[in-house]
């Protein structure tokens, strides 16, 4: 299938055509996971310091 939007496709070092959409998705997933971990850590810290801290 031809892609009318050349900007969405790039050729990697091995000469394989790859979609940038896939990369954006991967970045999005990683960002979501990072934010989830940061939030969970903040939540635990807030709960522990708020209830058991001096």
């Amino acid at each position, binding site marked *: 299938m031809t892609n009318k*939007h050349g900007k969405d496709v790039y050729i990697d070092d091995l000469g394989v055509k790859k979609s940038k959409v896939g990369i954006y998705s991967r970045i999005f*997933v990683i960002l*979501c*996971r990072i*934010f989830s971990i940061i*939030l*969970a850590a903040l939540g635990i810290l*807030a*709960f522990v*310091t708020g209830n058991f801290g001096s």
Partner: protein
Amino acid sequence: MQKEQIKKRVYEVIEVSSIGDASSRAYDVLMTTAVIVGMIPLTLKSDNSYTYAIEMLTTLIFVIDYVSRVWTADYKMGYKSFKAYIAYILSPMALFDFLSIVPVIYLFTPVGASIGLLKLFRAFRVLKLIRYSKTAVVIANVLRKVKKELLAVLILIIIYIFVSAMLIFQLEPDLFANFFDALYWATISITTIGYGDIYPTTNVGRLITMVSALVGVAVIALPSGMITAAYISEISRKKSKYEL
């Protein structure tokens, strides 16, 4: 990617994930985490630096989520019109989404009693979880099925509470400072909680309390039975749907 394609993809991501959609799944996990962590400040007596960071981060996430949902409202509502955006903004889930953003206002304004109350709006965030839980959807369907019956029982309970409160208020005027106290006593009696902080001293008052307790056992148990029956019927409906 064209604008419409991006919009459609954003809609797919913010909606509950379908099998194999890693982005949507990661987004669901992030939103669920944000909702749960966003309520942690409610478990603390006072705010600290971590709660401030939580409030800022969760509100940022909720604002992005709300804007994305409003932007893709035409996909959600199933028709492309300006009315779709208005209908979506006024829908219960969109209102809960909006209320979950409101608590951030108190961080930027001098603390006052009314502003402090905004903190309580954080509790609305838990309603955002409904969209990510299949069980919550089943419970919502069950409640929708028996809403008329539940409303009838609720009206019956309210009438009984008012009548018994009026009777006891007239029979034992020294016991209650105002009618609200009598309403409180009637509610505590009919629900069979019985804290015992207010109790009748005359025989007629005690008789009303006994009747209230007996009516309470019968009336309060009614909704539980209705909900259980509707829940079982919903589960069997789902099972037969999968078996077909």
